[in-house]
């Protein structure tokens, strides 16, 4: 829609109000990381300090979950990149029997609540006696990351003109050369964007993970435990900032990589 009229004042205020509602709460996380009060969530903070960053750095129980989260996110993203791109290549232009069913299958892990994905995997591990390991976490994460890569890649495949592929073949390139020298450079930024979104999603995921991790602790699970049984509250804030920034930067980059097209990344989660 386009309009030449000015928006009504109430609408403007309501829109700004909703936007503030979406953004102000996060800022408090940053403020509370500097508070001197470690037993309550007293506002305003009685004093400000930067000591919690050093305390968090020296807490030995934070590092292993951080490494595990990074490892899981990296492997899941790599798997999702391969599977999502393959799927997008097949689904972008072709019409075939069962196509709708396959696209439903791709979307399902993210359309159904996380608890169903988690509980399903948990049931399957129980039935097949698979012990919990890093592998069981990755299995879940890669499954719901496929759709993110797929969405980004399929949009780019659709926008690519078929004639560049034909031109490449006319010039004597075989399918693999065409993929390497023509398709991949064109897909690059969409895959990078999809990969970063998938990484952010996996790094932050907690609901499915609690069902597939057993006794292991990823960074979000560590945070969840601190939320339920707080110890040094400002340290949790420092970790929250780390998690926030680690997911925020890839999302922003993904946006700038794909903006300007009809396929801007992040439209659907």
């Amino acid at each position, binding site marked *: 829609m386009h309009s030449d009229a000015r928006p009504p004042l109430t609408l403007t205020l309501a829109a700004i109000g909703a936007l503030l509602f979406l953004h102000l709460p996060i800022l408090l996380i940053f403020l509370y990381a500097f508070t001197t009060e470690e037993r309550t969530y007293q506002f305003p903070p009685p004093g400000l300090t930067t000591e919690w960053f050093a305390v968090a750095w020296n807490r030995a129980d934070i590092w292993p979950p951080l490494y595990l989260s990074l490892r899981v996110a990296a492997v899941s993203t790599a798997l999702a990149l*391969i599977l999502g791109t393959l799927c997008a290549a097949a689904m972008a232009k072709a019409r075939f029997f069962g196509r709708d069913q396959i696209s439903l299958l791709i979307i399902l892990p993210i359309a159904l609540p996380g608890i169903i994905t988690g509980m399903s995997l*948990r049931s399957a591990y129980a039935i097949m006696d698979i012990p919990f390991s890093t592998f069981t976490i990755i299995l879940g994460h890669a499954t719901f990351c496929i759709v993110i890569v797929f969405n980004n890649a399929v949009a780019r495949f659709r926008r690519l003109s078929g004639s560049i592929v034909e031109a490449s073949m006319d010039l004597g390139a075989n399918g693999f050369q065409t993929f390497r020298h023509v398709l991949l450079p064109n897909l690059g930024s969409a895959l990078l964007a999809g990969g970063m979104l998938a990484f952010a999603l996996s790094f932050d995921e907690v609901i499915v993970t609690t069902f597939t991790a057993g006794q292991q602790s990823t960074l979000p699970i560590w945070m969840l435990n601190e939320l339920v049984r707080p110890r040094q509250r400002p340290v949790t804030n420092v970790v929250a900032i780390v998690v926030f920034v680690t997911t925020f930067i890839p999302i922003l980059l993904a946006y700038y990589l794909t903006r300007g097209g009809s396929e801007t990344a992040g439209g659907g989660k």
Partner: protein
Amino acid sequence: MMTTNRAILPERGLGDRLSALFWRKPNLLLVLLLAPPVLWLGVVYLGSLVALLIQSFYSIDEFSGVIVPEFTLATYAELLRPSNFDIIVRTVTMAAAVTLGAAVIGFPLAYFAARYARGKWKAVFYLGIMLPLWSSYLVKVYAWKLILAKEGIIGWAVEGLGGSAVLNSVLALPVIGGTSLSTSYIGTWLVFLYVWLPYMILPMQASLERVPVSMLEASSDLGATRWQTFRTVVFPLAMPGIIAGSIFTFSLTLGDYIIPQIIGSSRRFIGQAVYQLQGTAGNVPLAAAFAVVPIVIMVVYLTIARRKGAFDAL
């Protein structure tokens, strides 16, 4: 070597031979491309869903606590016990309340972004909605724990404005009240609303952007006031977007167990029941049966939504 000139270059190895094969049999390429992802999703995801269904038809031996792998409907019958059925009713009510709240608060923002935001502001609004959607779920929930705590910013602001009596009388309300905002349904509702709001706004905005300007002009040419145009033209056309958004807010609320665990009273939601039953209680069959409930509700919901044309707005 060759007596006649050939239009087709000679093959230069395996790559060429495979390319030629795929060219002659495009379906073969399709199958090869689709096989890995479909196998993965089919085995890992659908396989797990089947495992969930199978588990939900098992039962647990009440004395030994061992899972009895025999087909029974007894586990599903347990869902109808008052204490379990209350959990389902509570969760569905909360999901409906969250969906309604998200539609009311999100609509002005979606409408403004679709209709009045231009150029640079368009990008600001897009990022302003997308960043909260993607930013860390736990961090968002944690932020609200800080906000809603008794000694937190809301308590401080209310006291500063002299509204403690108002807050206390709200908290004294039956059912939705509690000892503080962070232990009441109001708090749970607010956090659900906050976390799922972007999921409602994006499809609403998409459907509002598709409303043709000519219709609005026609409406005002025919003498409709701004409010009449909104009520009879814009709103009905935005409805598929609202329904599409409600699919997300409803489904996500049904399946969440972290938010009511951190912010809220001790009364359980479906997600918490699933989590506790499979973990500490060790009753995987009942947990699985509980997890099937949101699936059934969402299938019904999606069937209705499909009839209303909500999928075009996704």
